[in-house]
């Protein structure tokens, strides 16, 4: 699996050829994977699992903004509805966790197809406003239908037995599952970005009319990217619902859409590791600040403003630029 990284990681702009620089992505990936395997021995595993779900969510979001240049302001829709259907399938239909997660992911994919085909009809800020409005519509829908449990959400979701065999109430087993999903999702996104399909996406981001003139049906590419992003966001939400045994309105409401934008922005738009770092930074902040809940909103807003005005490349983007490597 590592070989493909070695092939893809091209030496960045004129940097001196060195093993470290050429393989910066591979190395960082290994560090991250090892770190996440070791981390539960030092920190609260539940927190780490949740953080990985959000990190995957942010990576999925980044696929759109970072590589196609589309800012979706309604990604909570896929995350939240993925969580709802996953929780519902596990609780009311008694499905095993992997099937429940699949159900949630499929739901998100379906929502992605519908919302995506509407939203890609417009560009730029219109696209952002349309995704936001559609997500808000589905939030109201979630508030009213029976399935979601309204304000109470779906609580006491059973973690169940993976493949009917492995008891996920065991934190270690659950952790391994989440880690596997997260890494698989991450590698999948990496593959997309570095595939010919991904190159076309980047071409659309840089100059859509030119991509059209080259004969690419950009609408179709954008829709596929949108659906992929929604599906992965749904995967993250579905997994989170099983981990925390809860799906609630928080996950579908617009502040959640804002939060994932923030995570990605802090980490670095269009960097492959940025969203992960960003989501950990934001979650640690929220965790530490839950005692002073009233200031969370202000601090988040201030981070937004600071990111946009002072360091638009985000944490990872700045580091990558300093070290002149690809991250």
């Amino acid at each position, binding site marked *: 699996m590592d070989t493909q990284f070695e092939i893809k990681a091209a030496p960045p702009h004129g940097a001196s050829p060195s093993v470290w620089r050429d393989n910066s992505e591979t190395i960082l990936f290994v560090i991250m994977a090892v770190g996440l395997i070791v981390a539960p021995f030092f920190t609260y595993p539940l927190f780490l699992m949740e953080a990985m779900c959000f990190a995957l969510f942010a990576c999925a979001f980044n696929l759109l903004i970072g590589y196609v240049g589309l*800012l979706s*302001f309604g990604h909570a829709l896929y995350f939240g509805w993925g969580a709802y259907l996953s929780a519902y399938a596990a609780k009311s239909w008694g499905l095993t966790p992997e099937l429940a997660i699949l159900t949630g992911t499929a739901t998100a994919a379906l929502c992605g197809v519908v919302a995506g085909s*509407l939203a890609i*009809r*417009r560009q*730029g*800020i*219109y696209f*952002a*406003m*349309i995704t*936001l*409005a*559609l997500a*808000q*519509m589905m939030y*109201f*829908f979630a508030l*009213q239908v029976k399935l979601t449990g309204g304000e109470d959400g779906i609580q006491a979701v059973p973690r169940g037995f993976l493949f009917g065999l492995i008891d996920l109430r065991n934190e270690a087993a659950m952790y391994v599952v989440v880690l596997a999903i997260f890494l698989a999702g991450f590698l999948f996104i990496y593959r997309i970005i570095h595939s010919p399909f991904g190159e076309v996406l980047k071409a659309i981001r840089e100059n859509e009319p030119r991509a059209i003139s080259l004969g690419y049906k950009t609408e179709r590419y954008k829709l596929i990217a949108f659906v992929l992003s929604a599906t992965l966001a749904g995967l993250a939400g579905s997994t989170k619902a099983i981990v925390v045994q809860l799906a609630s309105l928080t996950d579908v409401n*617009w502040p959640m859409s*804002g939060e994932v*934008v923030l995570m990605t*922005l802090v980490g670095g738009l269009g960097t492959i590791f940025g969203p992960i770092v960003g989501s950990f930074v934001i979650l640690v902040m929220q965790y530490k600040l839950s005692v002073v809940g*009233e*200031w*969370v*909103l*202000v*601090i*988040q*807003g*201030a*981070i*937004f*403003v600071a*990111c*946009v*005005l002072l360091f*638009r490349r985000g944490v990872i983007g700045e580091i990558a630029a300093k070290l002149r490597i690809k991250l």
Partner: protein
Amino acid sequence: MFEIFGIPSMALFGQLLIGLINGSFYALLSLGLAVIFGMLNIINFSHGAQYMMGAFAAYLLLKFTGLGYWPALIVAPLLVGLFGVVIERTMLRYLYKLDHLYGLLLTFGLALIIEGVARKNLGSAGLPYVLPDSLQGGHNLGFMFLPNYRAWVIVASLVVCFGTWFAIERTRLGAYLRAATENPTLVRAFGINVPVMITLTYGFGVALAAFAGVMAAPIYNVSPQMGSDLIIVVFAVVVIGGMGSILGAIITGFGLGVVEGLTKVFFPEASNTVIFVVMAIVLLVRPAGLFGRRA
């Protein structure tokens, strides 16, 4: 008396009128968004927060300076507009050369800060703002009881909306504005200070939001989240109307208020999603919006 779909026509007139009242707020807010977008190419996400600031400014003016509703209707938008000017001078102007999305992100961050500060200092339960004495009471129109204040809301917002339209489309100042939107360098060559014009435009758009906020204060509960709930609906209104036209923003705003009002009668459960549904349909049929210029 005849009936339409089982609803007495008289009651229907009442609901239509009420829809028009709510439409006034949509019109005022989407008008502000359109003005700002036209000049700055920025979608002002903090528009809702600034609307809320207007309402709170009115409340605080009354509480601490004893300034009543009528003065507040002028003073509060001026104060909030001034705040907008400061924001534009210190932050927004650094973003004009970048992707428009950064403007959206920045103003989103600002909205969070404003709402957070309001919550921290004014509580989230909401505060009462008493109706001015001169506008209390109402008239029985036969088909409904129309409170005087609601009538005033319609009149005032119609005047402000069409005044703005007139100023932009029919006056010399408006002509400069429109020209600066098309070709800022050329307009600057004529000796017109374009940056100042941009600043003032943003201030004016923000002041419009604050004006709507003051108008809303006596009707709604003045609370920190009053803006964020509304702004997303207004975004949908703007998408439906298309941002290109001032008149389009006004007409769409009033029209959708009526549509929403009717939904409240026939299918109340859907009344907060109907605008989004309309948006989806418009996107399918006319992606550029009803009044949009661009295909």
